[in-house]
C-alpha cells in the first residue's frame, strides 16, 4: 500500500513538472489544448495524412519539379 502511495506521489509530481500552457486568451488556450491533445498520443495518426496531403498539393502545384526536390533530398545525407 505504501509503495503504491509513493508511486502515485512520484507520478503526480512528474505530471506537474511544468505549469499548463497559457496563451493569453481563453479561446486560444482552449484550441491549443484541443490540438495538442491529438498529438500527445501516436501523432503519426494525424501527421501522416497531413504530410500526404501536402505532398499531393506540392505535386499538383509543382508538377514534375517535385522530382528535383526529391533528388536534392536524396543527395542530402
Amino acid at each position, binding site marked *: 500500500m505504501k509503495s503504491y502511495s509513493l508511486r502515485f506521489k512520484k507520478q503526480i509530481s*512528474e*505530471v506537474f*513538472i*511544468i*505549469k499548463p*500552457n*497559457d*496563451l*493569453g486568451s481563453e479561446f486560444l488556450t482552449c484550441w*491549443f489544448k484541443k490540438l*495538442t491533445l491529438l*498529438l*500527445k*498520443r*501516436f*501523432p*503519426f495518426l494525424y*501527421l*501522416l495524412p*497531413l*504530410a*500526404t496531403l*501536402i*505532398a*499531393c498539393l*506540392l*505535386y499538383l502545384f509543382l508538377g*514534375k519539379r*517535385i*522530382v528535383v*526536390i*526529391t*533528388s536534392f*533530398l*536524396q*543527395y*542530402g*545525407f
Partner: protein
Amino acid sequence: MVFRKKKIVDIIASFILVIRNFCFLIIYPYKGMRKISLENDYWQIFFIFLMVFIYFKLAYFLRGNFYPTIFTFFIFLANFFLMISFFYGLGKIFNWKIKKTALIFTFSYSLLPTLIWFFTTLFFYFVLPPPRTFSLMGRTFSIFFITFSLTVLFWKLILFYLALRFSTQVSFFKIFYLILLFLLWYAPYSVLLYYLKIFRVPFI
C-alpha cells in the same frame, strides 16, 4: 570483479532504457519527453551519440564523403553543444528555471527523427539511386519520399518543442520566439555548412 559486473549491468540497462524511451517518443511523445527530462544516466547519451557516429561512418564508407568521419562527428558535436549553450545562455539571461541536464537529455533524444531520416535516406540512396526521373515510378516515389520526409520533419518539430518546453519550463509563445531567435543564426550557419559540403541537410 563484482564492481565490473555491476558496471556492465548498468550499461546494458542504459541501452534498454534508450530503446524504451525511443518507443515512448514514437507512441507517447509528450509523456516520453517528460520522463526523459528527468533522466540523469549519461550512458544513454553515449548510446545515442554512438548511433550518430555509426551513421557518419556508414555514410563515409558507402558514399565516400569529402571529410573523414571524425571531422564530421566533431562538427556535429560542436553544433549540438552550441545549440544547447545558446538556449541555456538565453534562459540564464531571462532568469528562467532552465535545467542543463534536461536540456542535454531532451535534445539528445530529439535526434531520433534525424537519425531515422538520415538512415532511411542512406538506404534509399542505394536501393533507388538519385536523380529521380519524370517517369510514373519516379513521380510516385517522389510523393512517397516527400510524405515520409514531411512526417519526420513534423515529428522532429514536436520533439524539438517538447525538449524546450520541459527543459526551460516556459510557455508556448516564449518557446516560439526562442526557436525564431535560434533560426536567425542557425539558418545562415546551415547554408555555410552546405557550401562547405559538411552537411547538405542540417543534422540537428
